[in-house]
């Protein structure tokens, strides 16, 4: 069916069909063992069209000016943007370093009547756990430490491998993992929470901001910068056929 189509992206279409044939052979062989009568079938990819995530309208993808965003012509939702994957890679490595600093040092220290107490984020999670608030401890750990770390570490591997021209199946599975976990990373909300709690405490005691406070602010900005340089559609295309040379 896509063979009739003589669009400029014809090459990638053919590549995707080859890919789907390769995957279907392998998974059917495996599935007949694991899942019994259940047969797995690969669908045929049509990468030259976009379907809007909000209203499902089919649209042909258009070339964009740098910094442009394509919007759905029916409901106005963003469809895709232009990305800079090399810039995103450099920002990701910076963010990883900042993340380590942010989680290793105290966020703030309070002083009152000659006594003081410092708190880091992992320490705060530990205290929640000790206070028998296990669910809460897990929730805070996952949203402020686990998911942001996974996101950055996987992105570093994915972007690094794609930059070096090695698209592979593990890279694509990592990419899928990131798109599933990303909504649960809440560094920016946490940052606001830090500010609110410091202002609340300022009435009661002397509060000294720690290294991690500034690192979290930097991490929040870096994460926003990383994602503003990544377009999911472009990243997936590169993960299938490799970076254009």
């Amino acid at each position, binding site marked *: 069916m896509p063979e009739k189509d003589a669009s400029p992206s014809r090459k990638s279409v053919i590549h995707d069909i080859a890919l789907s044939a390769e995957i279907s052979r392998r998974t059917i062989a495996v599935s007949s063992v694991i899942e019994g009568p259940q047969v797995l079938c690969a*669908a045929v990819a049509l990468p030259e069209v976009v379907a809007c*995530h909000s*209203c499902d309208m089919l649209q042909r993808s258009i070339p964009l000016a740098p910094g442009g965003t394509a919007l759905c012509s029916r409901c106005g939702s963003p469809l895709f943007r232009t990305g800079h994957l090399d810039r995103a890679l450099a920002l990701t490595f910076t963010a990883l370093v900042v993340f380590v600093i942010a989680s290793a040092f105290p966020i703030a220290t309070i002083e009152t009547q000659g006594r003081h107490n410092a708190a880091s984020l992992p320490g705060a999670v530990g205290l929640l756990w000790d206070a028998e608030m296990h669910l*809460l401890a897990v*929730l805070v750990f996952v949203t402020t430490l686990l998911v942001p770390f996974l996101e950055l570490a996987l992105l570093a591997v994915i972007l690094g491998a794609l930059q070096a021209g090695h698209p592979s199946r593990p890279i*694509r599975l990592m*990419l*899928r993992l990131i798109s599933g976990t990303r909504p649960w990373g809440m560094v920016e909300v946490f940052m606001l929470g830090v500010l*609110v709690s410091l202002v609340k405490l300022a009435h009661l005691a002397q509060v000294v901001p720690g290294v991690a406070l500034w690192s979290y602010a930097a991490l929040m900005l870096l994460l926003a910068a990383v994602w503003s340089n990544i377009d999911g559609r472009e990243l997936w295309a590169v993960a299938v056929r490799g970076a254009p040379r």
Partner: protein
Amino acid sequence: MTATVTALELGLVTCHSCGLVCRPPDRAGCKVFCPRCEASLHARKPDSIARTWALLLAACVLYIPANLLPIMESGSLFGSQQDTIMSGVVFLATSGSWHLAALVFFASIIVPSGKLLAMALLLVSLRRSAPGSARARTRLYRVLEFFGRWSMLDIYVVTLLAALVQIESIATIRPGPGAPFFGGVVVLTMLAAMSFDPRLIWDNLKEQTRNDGNT
């Protein structure tokens, strides 16, 4: 509206995980997956309406103890105090920082309750839709998705205060029994928004204009 064709009408399916548009094979009775990321393919999020209702109702149930039980318990030499979400906002407002109070009021009270109401509105309006409102409802859904996470604010404030104010014999702060319920509300409303499929808004619209044309 000029000739709009949806992927569904052409028998095409968009991968929920990587966004690739695919044509599923004709063979019946096989489990179709995405050729690019290997996620299983569904034309619409599976059981979207039932799942969203279930998560939404569960969130409504948790919303009651989340607001009635204290979210934070503080103790000092001069006695102990319990704060619910509302009394925390009132404390901020009376202690002078009213813009901070407004911010917390927005994140902890407007966002969760607004999200519960708006999700219910989206679900109910799927059945009877006015054509002009589909675009507005899609925008409402995108706003919900964007703001939902900000209600975690209070959870983080309690976590940090409890970690910082640990000075034995002078003052201590502990998270209250309401905090896990509030965290549950945030997680459940986020899951509800994720399981809702905004394309159903537009599917219903097309179906209704078609029915209107027949009569």
